[in-house]
């Protein structure tokens, strides 16, 4: 079987980093501007995904022989799933008490 020809447009490290940075930026803007707590949780997931993409990109290009970055990505997904579960539970609990999930209405700790 002949060796596969190199792709016409190879995915370089920069592609991965730019994608990760975009995902992270979209996520952080969402997390800091959205009023709905569920939307904020979703934005945080985006930020985490941006991080995963960055990890994988570095792993693929810097140390191709090793799978450390990819394993790290899987770990982050696991933790993110747990985080989403806990976060949603908190949101539901808050909603039960305060009948709202708008974060700017939840300011009990105001000085």
């Amino acid at each position, binding site marked *: 079987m002949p060796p596969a020809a190199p792709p016409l447009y190879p995915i370089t490290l920069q592609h991965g980093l730019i994608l990760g940075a975009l995902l992270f930026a979209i996520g*952080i803007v969402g*997390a*800091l*501007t959205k009023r709905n707590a569920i939307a904020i949780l979703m934005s945080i997931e985006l930020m985490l995904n941006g991080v995963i993409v960055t990890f994988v990109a570095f792993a693929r290009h810097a140390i191709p022989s090793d799978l450390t970055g990819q394993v790290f990505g899987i770990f982050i997904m696991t933790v993110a799933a747990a985080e989403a579960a806990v976060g949603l539970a908190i949101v539901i609990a808050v909603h039960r008490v305060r009948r709202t999930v708008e*974060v*700017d209405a*939840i300011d009990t700790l*105001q*000085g």
Partner: protein
Amino acid sequence: MAQYAWLIPLLPLISFALIAFGLRRSPAASGWVTALAVLGSLILSLSIFAQALGGGCVQSVCIDQSYDWIPLVGSPSLAIGIRVDALTALMLVVVTSVSFLVQVYSTGYMRHGADDDPVETNGYARSYARYFASMSLFTFSMLGLVLANSLLTIYLFWEGVGLCSYLLIGHWHWRPEAAAAAKKAFLVTRLGDFGFLLGILYLFSQAHTFQFDQLAQMAASGLIGGTALTIAMLLIFCGAAGKSAQFPLHVWLPDAMEGPTPVSALIHAATMVAAGVYLMARVFPLLVHSDLALQIVATIGAFTAIFAASMGLVATDIKRVMAYSTISQLGYMMLGIGVGAATAGVFHLFNHAFFKALLFLGAGSVIHLVNSNEMFASMGGLRRYRPVTMLTMWIAALSLAGIPPFSGFWSKDEILAAAATRAMPLYLAALVTVFMTAFYMGRVMFVTFYGEFRGDRHTLEHDHGEPMSMTIPLIILAIPSLFTGLWGAPFLGSGFAAFIEGPGAPEVATRLDVVVLSSALAFLGGLLSWGMYGRGSFTIPERLTAQLSWPHHVLMDRYHLDHLYNWIASRVVLGLAWLAGQFDTLIVDGAVNGIGARTVQLGSVLRRLQTGQVQTYGWVLFAGAVFLALLVALPIVTAGHL
């Protein structure tokens, strides 16, 4: 026998616990439990005394044992312990025997309490059991004090007897005078005790031990001495002066007569007030190495003797005369110690304990009869009602006055002889005191027992005689008042000095001129009192009082000292307290409150930062992270590595 010495204080402590926790509802038992416990202590004390007397102790120390109370790192442990030597054995007998007789006497005297003491249905005063609980506790503390082998141990019990004295002076606490007198006694003696504590600590810092035998050895070998020893001795003397009512801390003792009379007999005549003298005798091996301290002790003693006796000349309350007399006699003992005749001082303490207890119990007997302390207003002619009291009191009075061959004569004479050899001015003061003593004792006896009864006839009508429990102690106490002096009589070999100082004691100095002079003065004083008061009418003293109204007033007002102390307390001390209070509220509190107020102000500004908006915090967090990232990245970028 001496190894059981620790049982002696334990028995009264057990009786205290029994009464305090069990017998409060059965007063009759409380009295007899106390008397029995003290009787047990008395028997043990007598057997130890016999052992010491028979020479059964090594170098006159029967036992000296310590127990580590608080172990300390890097310094000797704090130990408490007991020591039995000749002096202890003697004091044990004095304390237990007088205490036992006083307890027996109290079962009669205190039964109906004071006239304002509510009597329960069982016929006993409500405060009866409490009285015996306090008396037991006192006897325990006093015996512990006597047995102590170190300054630390003695200090513990020293405060114990002070507490019991407070409780018993204020026994009839619903009387404002009794409550005030108790407080005064406690505060004034505490003032002295403060010096005592400082002295103990100072001596410990120099010698690193509290124990009497080690301290004495160190003083003898010159390891402690000089100014340090003088300071320590004078501070310890402060405590002794407070307890033994020496000038200027004597003011509490006359007021302490507000307590029940048996209390005055036991605590404020025979035992506790003698504790100061006992303490000075205990530390005497150290004291002799400081001439200045000796001189001060002697001077204060002699001055107190004459000073208190002069107030005794005019007092009209029979117990107050006795109180002044006690202060005066304690002054004698201090004088004896100060002129180097510590054994003579202790001998006087020993004799005085018996005859003064007897005088107080006799006074209690007539007070019980007429329900008043006033000799001129409520007494007179009482020899028909209380012949035994009169007879026994005469023995004690002659002994106190120093008429040979009664006991007081022998000990007083030894002190006078030592003073005559060592300090002439003090000797003269003591001679004047001898004259005054004989005069005021004669006055008490003539005014109380002779002439016509001057009080309210009704008080005598329901006199059914006094209970045997009150009469018998008087008779028993008369025996030592008659004979104990002979133990120290030079022509019988001065057995007392040999006992206290052990074999090889220096011969007791006797001076015939002193003997003749002091006896003559005592006779003259007695004769003068008979001339003025012995013939039933008081025209001479009344005329004298009218002519010498100013000195009389000064003496009656106790040299205005109480006013002076009151003034100092109310003006100087309270003024300083006011100043300190102002400093505290304005400066200390001002600083603390000011810091607090500024903090609150700053907080009210800073709290605006806390919006409670979680996204604001998120922005700040993000900005901080970006800032830190730039901080790291910029130098790398500008250096051109990227």
